[in-house]
């Protein structure tokens, strides 16, 4: 599960659209993340959407706080 724009997102079997149209993983299981442009995800209760991978990354809220004497 992940959070996308405040909604839980359940990832199905990942299917990636790359610039070359094919996801290639070498014999060591390595690949270049940067080749991914979009990822298909199943949105809970909302069917399937195709979302740019970078959007998923940047939409995850993250906040660090430091409070003195707390």
């Amino acid at each position, binding site marked *: *599960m*992940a*959070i996308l724009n405040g909604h*839980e997102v359940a*990832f199905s*079997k*990942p299917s990636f659209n790359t610039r070359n149209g094919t996801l290639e*993983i070498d014999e*060591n*299981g*390595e*690949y270049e*993340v940067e080749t*991914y442009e979009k*990822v298909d995800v199943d949105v809970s209760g909302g069917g399937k959407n195709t979302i740019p*991978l970078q959007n*998923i*990354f940047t939409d*995850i*809220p*993250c*906040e*660090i*706080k*430091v*409070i*003195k*004497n*707390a």
Partner: protein
Amino acid sequence: MLNNNFKNWLVEQLYQTQVTQKFKKIDGTETNTTLYAFSSLFKANTAKINNITASGFTFALGSGTTPATKEDYFVETQIDNDEHFSIAAASIVNNANQGKVICQQVWNYSNSENPTQEVTINEIGFCVCNGSGSQRYMMAREVLESPITVKDGDTFSVAITIGG
């Protein structure tokens, strides 16, 4: 700001299995490994980043002020690597209903030799250890909008909220 290490871990979650990825350790060296079981790294730990050897999270404190980027692999200028700083407690809150996790630690600063000496904390790094002293990674870094200054006897809490 969540960095490229976190992004690469996220891609592993898309695969729902272990996938070798390029991660940068806190010393800047790049390694091909998997951090798929990152959830197991969300364990409370009271060891500082230079001492942590068990799976868990910890924070690094710094004085750097350069704005955070996704390319950051550690705090700019570490200041917690001495005996004056210690971690008194650590805890974690998993709130699945809100889709967020909160990792927090309580820190002490003790310097009886120089009780008036002040140290300013400008930046925080959220780090994890993958069960070995050689597997330490930063996943997020933030430069504080309001830095805090501590001296002998002060206590402060550090917390990161991801998601929600």
